[in-house]
């Protein structure tokens, strides 16, 4: 073999840096970015809930309706489900070896996540806007 055959990849493929999965490092980076966000949002949410263990329905609605709380709850929803999809995707890739089941689950978790985020966001907005 000649010396220049050491790397069988085309130079363009290496330059694009997308790897065999075609997504490059975007999955890895997005997982870490959402994780960092969830550290802050998760702790904030736990403190919020612990502060309202005894709150009645009207108080709880008023708490969610506060602008900062509403914004952070929606941010929490989006970040949580985004991170969940990325994590579940890896679990499915690792353990589901039947191709059609794998694709079905991959699509299903995305549909469920998007509907959950939309539903949760609508709920927060209804409370925040008093509808």
């Amino acid at each position, binding site marked *: 073999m000649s010396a220049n055959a050491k790397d069988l990849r085309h130079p363009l493929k290496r330059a694009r840096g997308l790897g065999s999965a075609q997504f490059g490092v975007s999955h890895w980076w997005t997982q*870490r970015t959402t*994780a*960092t966000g*969830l*550290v802050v949002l*998760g*702790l904030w949410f*736990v403190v919020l809930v*612990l502060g309202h*263990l*005894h709150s009645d*329905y009207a108080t*709880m*609605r008023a708490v*969610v309706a506060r602008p900062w709380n509403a914004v952070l*709850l929606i941010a929490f*929803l989006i970040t*949580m*489900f985004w991170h*969940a999809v990325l*994590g*579940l995707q890896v*679990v499915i890739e690792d353990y589901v070896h039947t191709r059609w089941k794998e694709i079905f689950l991959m699509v299903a978790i995305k549909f*469920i996540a998007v509907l*959950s985020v939309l*539903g*949760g966001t*609508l*709920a*927060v907005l*209804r*409370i925040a806007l008093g509808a």
Partner: protein
Amino acid sequence: MAETQRPLSPHLQIYKWQVQMVTSILHRATGIALSVGALIFVWWLGALAAGEDAFNQFKICMGSPIGIILLIGWTWSFFYHLCNGIRHLVQDAGAGYAIVQFVRSSWASVIVSLLLTLIVVGYALSAGGAA
């Protein structure tokens, strides 16, 4: 089945259990549990938006013995995934890979998450309210 007599990789029952593999498995398991918990979070928001009856229904379900057990499970899952997630972020930065540090941080994830769960569950039970 293949008839070749290739050596098999040792399976789970044969491995000597080590804390590092426990933390890895638990990170996935708690991640899956939290994905289900995320749906309960959406239910909570939806019930709060839908009206007092729906919200009371949610409170009855989550305040039942099974509900409380699930909430405690999600609390620990959250704190474990949080602690071990921060550990992973530190390792992603390239730190803590020496075997001694790796084992020590594994134990830290398990122990700190249990302590935080104890504090939060203890506070919630002493405050006398569920959800």
